[in-house]
């Protein structure tokens, strides 16, 4: 049986300065039960505004937000049944951990013993021992522990939808990855529907069932993290998700069976995995790991010069300048060449992976 979406956003817009600034521009978005959807984009892309509108902290200029099928227009935040974990965490400094977590339940008017039990359970869920932490003040907690309190405080109210506003931005990389994995497992365990707003594509990929890329108030692309990483529909999306090599297309030589053969400004023709009407100023894009570097010409390869090479986290990377002046990055798990700066190398591109995109 098809379940109804938890969240439906239709044609949502939010303008500022009497329409001059379009922070959110006619976006549509659904979140299904048990699904985490990440909204990923640079700062100022409208992702936070979208989230604030969902929570009722800001109001749209046009469009509709439905939660569990009900239009929430005109409903204040406290009547929406939407939880929000803030970037600053917004832990109440004048309350103990227990009082923080109990706050939402108290607002619901639950009986005291019920609150006690739920708070203890929520703290255990986020792996804070109630005996040890319930009485502590926020000032006595570490960043990671505050994170858990914020999470417990939101989850304990059992909201229909949980919104995360980059709550892990302040944590260092390792703790962030650890928390992301843990958050993901809690979400699965509870079957939560959630929207995760972030500019950090790694966290978004780790956390989400689906990712939505936003820029300048518009949704550029939506899909699973793999889909978007593998088949970005624009240079912007590709750039945003990781290192991207770009070659300008001079001429499309052939399009057949959904594949293309193009002439690039690097002087070499490339086979790419997609086709379509790409118009003027299109690009071939491919990732550093979709290249192979040779010390001798294997035929049909780009000739270039190694500018620098690094070894990091088990990966070899080379910065290469091609004959036509294009720069590209190549990457491999094995050190194919003992090349150092100044050596001439040849590069080929995995034809099954390279893609053509519009400007």
């Amino acid at each position, binding site marked *: 049986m098809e379940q109804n979406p938890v969240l439906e956003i239709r044609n949502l817009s939010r303008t500022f300065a009497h329409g001059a600034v379009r922070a959110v521009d006619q976006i549509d978005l659904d979140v299904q039960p048990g699904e985490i959807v990440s909204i990923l984009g640079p700062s100022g892309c409208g992702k936070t505004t979208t989230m604030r509108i969902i*929570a*009722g*902290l800001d109001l749209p200029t046009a469009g509709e937000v439905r939660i569990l099928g009900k239009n929430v227009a005109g409903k*204040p*935040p*406290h009547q*929406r049944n*939407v*939880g*929000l974990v*803030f970037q*600053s965490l*917004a832990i*109440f*400094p*004048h309350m103990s951990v227990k009082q923080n977590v109990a*706050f*939402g339940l108290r*607002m*619901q008017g639950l009986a005291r013993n019920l609150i006690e039990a739920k708070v203890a359970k929520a703290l255990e869920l986020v792996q804070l021992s109630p005996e040890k932490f319930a009485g502590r003040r926020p000032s006595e907690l570490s960043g990671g522990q505050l994170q858990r309190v914020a999470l417990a*405080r*939101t989850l304990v*109210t059992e909201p229909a939808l949980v919104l995360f506003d980059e709550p892990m931005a302040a944590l260092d990389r390792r703790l962030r990855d650890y928390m992301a994995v843990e958050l993901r497992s809690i979400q699965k365990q509870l079957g939560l529907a959630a929207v995760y707003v972030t500019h950090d594509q790694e966290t978004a990929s780790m956390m989400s069932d689906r990712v939505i890329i936003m820029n300048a108030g518009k949704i550029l692309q939506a899909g699973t993290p793999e889909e978007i990483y593998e088949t970005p529909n624009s240079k912007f999306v590709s750039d945003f998700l990781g290192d991207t090599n770009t070659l300008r297309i001079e001429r499309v030589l052939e399009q057949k069976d959904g594949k293309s053969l193009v002439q690039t400004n690097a002087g070499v023709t490339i086979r790419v995995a997609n086709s379509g009407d790409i118009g003027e100023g299109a690009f071939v894009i491919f990732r550093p790991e979709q290249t192979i570097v040779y010390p001798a010409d294997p035929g049909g390869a780009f000739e270039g010069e190694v500018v620098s090479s690094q070894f990091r986290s088990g990966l070899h990377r080379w910065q290469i300048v091609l004959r036509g002046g294009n720069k590209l990055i190549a990457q491999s798990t094995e050190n194919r060449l003992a090349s150092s700066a100044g050596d001439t190398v040849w590069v080929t591109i995995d034809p099954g992976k390279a893609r053509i995109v519009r400007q």
Partner: protein
Amino acid sequence: MSMPTATGRFGIEWQLVKGITCMLLALMLAPICMVLVISFTSGETLQFPPPALSLRWYQEVWTMLVGPDAGIGRLRESLLVSLEIAALTSLVCVLAGVPTSYALVRYRFAGKTVIEELIGLPVVFPAVVLGIALLVLVSASDLNFGIFQIVAAHSIIGLPFLMRNCMAAMRGIDPMLEEAAMTLGASAPKVFREIVLPLASGGIGSGAILVFILSFNEFTLSYFLYSVDVFPLSIWLFQQANTSFSPAVFAVSSLIVVVNVAAVLVVDAVIGSRGSAA
């Protein structure tokens, strides 16, 4: 904190600054100190230095306050009225100033700067004019407002002081805390009660104490608005200054000084702890 440097903190210059400051402060506090010392005299007059020290005038004051004849000298009555006026004034200023402070700190709206200007007006408004105009209004109304005519006058001049403290405290509250409370199911009044009030309580409290001190010591407005039934302590002291002038008055004054210093220390502690936390 920047590192202390040698510039202007050593040598003759610094000794001079320190010396002059101490001298000036001594001069500023001289009258208050005189009152304190003379209140302990054993003699009948205000002579200085006192012939010997004793607590006889404090015993006298004690009798004036709680003795069988306490009603005659009116000291007890005046003290109670002054305390009542000061407490009510603090209360009125808190009730009036806290919501307005919140509106001014949290929202932008047309006419906001005008309102901010108006709130600061009582600080510069001449007290004599306020006192006289209120007296004219009260007489014209033909009503008996009791202590409330003085409470109203004191509340007007106390409001900016309460609000300055209150707004400083409210500016320090992260708006996200209020939004977090909203998303956790708190309605606007509950957000105010559960988040804003507790977090601003230090500023509100110190402001309220400040207003209390201000009202308790206030003379000019009380001078115009007192009546036979409402006879504040400052007016009692004024009357004493013009009639009998025994060391007992100095003992009463000393007690007032002690109460004031204690209140200032409390405010200082509250503001100081807030300052160091920020």
